[in-house]
């Protein structure tokens, strides 16, 4: 007899497997189109690009960020940098003022209003055809901009190009796990790019055609994820977003579980709420794979993880309870032989076990291929091994929390 819970359970497992298989098939279809350029490239024509650096209390890293832009392999007379200090209370303004003499750098200081206000200030002072932001805790690879611009020149209908964000220098297992996770993200972004279903244009140096903002309006608060909100807006207006997999932007990542939790809580809360804001485009074939696949699958996966995690905790609870019962009734001495008694007969071989294993294998594949795209190496890294336990155990917590916050209509803080 199958209960409602069983049906939900199998429906969730079905959709998880479906998404993984879908990405894998997309990979097989498009694998020859995945090109990684390793050397310098030259363009026939270099358009002028404005890069905004919004800064709030980033005294430690903002100098390096600006230096990385100045070191880009791109003619510096075609790069305009607008640094916006969003009311920092540390030494950021002094650090940033060092660049006031550069001919292509302009510095602004304003009252704190949030990252999107800083970006909008920069937008208001942008006259070039191309615009992008670079977070003050991220650094651009010298070849990144030229490779990104090449995507615009190959296809004039492309309105924004997203780079590959990588982890800069990991110091512990949590950052190492994120390194693997970002590589997985690069693989998924590339696949989403092929599907025309990219859902976020990350702060770290996504480059837009300025006309996107002229037509669609400036950045909005977007529940503290303005980079996601603009992507959703672009998808709604059928603007094409591409992913330049060989443009590398390095970013700092949270070192502790607590900071990671805060960051991901903000992201997931942003995703859920932006999706709710844009729910009118769900399941409409006009909006393509973004509406049919990315958004529904994002929501379903959040729900799945919460549901499956609860189920696992519940089963674990039952298991522990039975072991404790044994301990209580017969004492420790004989309990030892009973607790560790293991016969393969008792291995649960029900169908969902195989399906879950299969899903994990596909995720492992995506991790490995992401690394191949970025580092050029096949193989399993330590970060990948850390990835599974760290994210399996902590992701459900920030997912639950994001759902809870949404229900309570409480927007999580940025920091």
């Amino acid at each position, binding site marked *: 007899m199958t209960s409602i819970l069983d049906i939900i359970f199998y429906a969730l497992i*079905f959709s998880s*497997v*479906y998404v993984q*298989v*879908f990405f894998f*098939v*997309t990979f097989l*279809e498009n694998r020859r189109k995945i090109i990684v350029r390793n050397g310098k490239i030259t363009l026939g024509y270099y358009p002028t690009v404005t890069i905004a650096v919004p800064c709030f209390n980033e005294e430690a890293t903002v100098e390096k960020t600006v230096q990385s832009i100045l070191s880009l392999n791109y003619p510096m007379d075609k790069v305009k940098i607008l640094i916006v200090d969003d009311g920092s209370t540390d030494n950021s303004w002094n650090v940033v003022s060092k660049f006031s003499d550069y001919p292509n750098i302009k510095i602004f200081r304003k009252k704190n209003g949030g990252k999107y206000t800083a970006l909008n200030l920069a937008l208001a002072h942008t006259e070039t055809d191309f615009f992008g932001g670079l977070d003050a805790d991220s650094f651009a690879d010298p070849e990144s901009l030229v490779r990104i611009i090449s995507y615009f020149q190959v296809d004039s*209908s492309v309105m924004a190009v997203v780079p590959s964000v990588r982890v800069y220098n990991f110091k512990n297992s949590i950052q190492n796990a994120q390194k693997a996770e970002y590589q997985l993200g690069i693989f998924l972004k590339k696949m989403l790019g092929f599907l*025309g279903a990219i859902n976020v244009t990350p702060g770290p140096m996504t480059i837009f055609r300025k006309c996107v903002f002229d037509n669609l309006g400036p950045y909005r608060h977007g529940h503290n994820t303005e980079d996601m909100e603009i992507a959703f807006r672009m998808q709604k207006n*059928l*603007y*094409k977003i591409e992913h330049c997999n060989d443009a590398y932007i390095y970013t700092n990542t949270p070192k502790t579980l607590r900071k990671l939790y805060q960051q991901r809580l903000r992201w997931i809360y942003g995703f859920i709420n932006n999706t709710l804001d844009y729910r009118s485009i769900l399941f409409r*074939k*006009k*909006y*393509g*794979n973004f509406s*049919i696949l990315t958004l529904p699958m994002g929501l379903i996966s959040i729900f799945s993880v919460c549901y499956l995690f609860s189920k696992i905790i519940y089963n674990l609870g039952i298991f522990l309870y039975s072991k404790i*019962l*044994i301990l*209580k*009734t*017969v*004492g420790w*001495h*004989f309990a*030892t*032989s*009973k607790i560790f*008694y293991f*016969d393969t*007969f*008792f291995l*649960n*071989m*029900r*169908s*969902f*076990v*195989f*399906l879950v294993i*299969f899903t994990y294998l596909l995720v492992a594949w995506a991790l490995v291929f992401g690394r191949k795209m970025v580092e050029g190496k096949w193989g399993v890294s330590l970060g990948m091994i850390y990835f599974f336990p760290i994210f399996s155990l902590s992701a459900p917590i920030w997912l639950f929390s994001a759902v809870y916050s949404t229900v309570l209509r409480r927007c999580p803080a940025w920091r």
Partner: protein
Amino acid sequence: MVNNNIDWKKYLIVFLMTVSLFLTASYLSNYFGNKKIDQLKSIQDKIAMDILSSETQFSLLSELSCKNISDTIYSPELGELGNKLEWSQSNLGATAEVSYLKKYYSLLQIKDYLLAKKISERCGIKSAFILYFYTNKDNCNLCESQGIVLTSLREKYPELKVYSFDYSIDLSAVKAMLQIYKIKDTELPALVIEDEVLTGFHSMDDLEARVKDSFKLQEIKPLDTVKKSS
């Protein structure tokens, strides 16, 4: 503007692939489930064979057989089988097959019990056994604990035999046992030691004391138990 023609064929192909994966997983699950049932069946066949062989042996030889009793007569798998059957019932589902195997198991236990009684009459040896009646339904939360106590007792004293019977099993032989010992479903778990009916939960110490008094069993040291089961 982006060309958003959705490739419906691809969605359909992925759907078919996922369905076939599901079917494969289901097939594998059934395959392993059936293997386990077959395993149970072969254990039961072995036990049935052992019991039949002992009965025949006992009938053929008269007094001489009393000397060789403890080595050849008793089937060691009987106890373990109980655990595997209970696990199967909760994890593979209470299918017709599992129920059938449970009934067969109860019958084998009764046969083993009768054989043990005959031997004790003939050879004058007191055979050590406990009859245990339980139920899986919710009006018996102590049954689980009692089961654990009995299993540990059995591991500690391998000569002690514990015959477990599910009160609600649909088998006339078991119903006969219930009538003989006047077991009521409101008084479960129930134990029968030396024709004395005990109801309610009895702890490890309590039962150990009784069993030691009645049966003069040899205790196996815990280290030996661990070595034996590995």
